[in-house]
């Protein structure tokens, strides 16, 4: 039987990237990505894992590759 993968969780550096982007607000980021401010807040807090499409859009807004915005860490 194959070995199960270790438990991991999605992390992100959106808060830092917003700061580096001149204190971009959650609302501004949400508007550019096409989601609400509350959804950006939930993603930042690790309470919601976005779809790949939204994750790529967020990375595109900051001009970063996806793996610099989102991480896959041990839980």
């Amino acid at each position, binding site marked *: 039987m194959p070995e199960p993968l270790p438990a991991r969780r999605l992390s992100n550096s959106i808060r830092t990237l917003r700061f580096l982007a001149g204190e971009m607000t959650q609302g501004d980021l949400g508007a550019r990505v*096409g*989601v*609400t401010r*509350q*959804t950006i807040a*939930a993603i930042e*807090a*690790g*309470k*919601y*894992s*976005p*779809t790949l499409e*939204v994750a790529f859009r967020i990375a595109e807004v900051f001009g970063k590759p996806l793996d610099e915005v989102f991480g896959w860490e041990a839980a």
Partner: protein
Amino acid sequence: MHHRERITWIWLCSLVVIFTAYFTVVVLKEPADPPFLERIRDLAAALGTLGVIALVTQALPLLTRAGREAAQPDERDRLISQQGAARAYWVLIGGMILVGGVMPFTEPTWKVVNTAMLAIALAEATGAVSVLLSYRRGFRA
């Protein structure tokens, strides 16, 4: 608080208050076996009040541009809503199996009707609680 979360809170509180009042009236009146029209009036009052609340909280905000923007769901809202509807569906199915499959052979008409109303109320409340928990605690598909 998110617009949809606020609307769901109002809906859940309305469900609890109105159906508690309705079922209290039903239980209190049942021994006297009230006439058909009186039972219909009570049911219509409960459903009518819920209809007005739904109209005021969900339809009226759509008349303004700001209200339309706030009510516009994104992917997280849709997933939360779908999960709530799926949970509500199972509660409703359980209630309807009882109401449609068992009770018609053993219970009087109005008991069947009111049990169906209870199943609908519980299903709606389950969906609303699921949505609120997803907004509060986080949501993972």
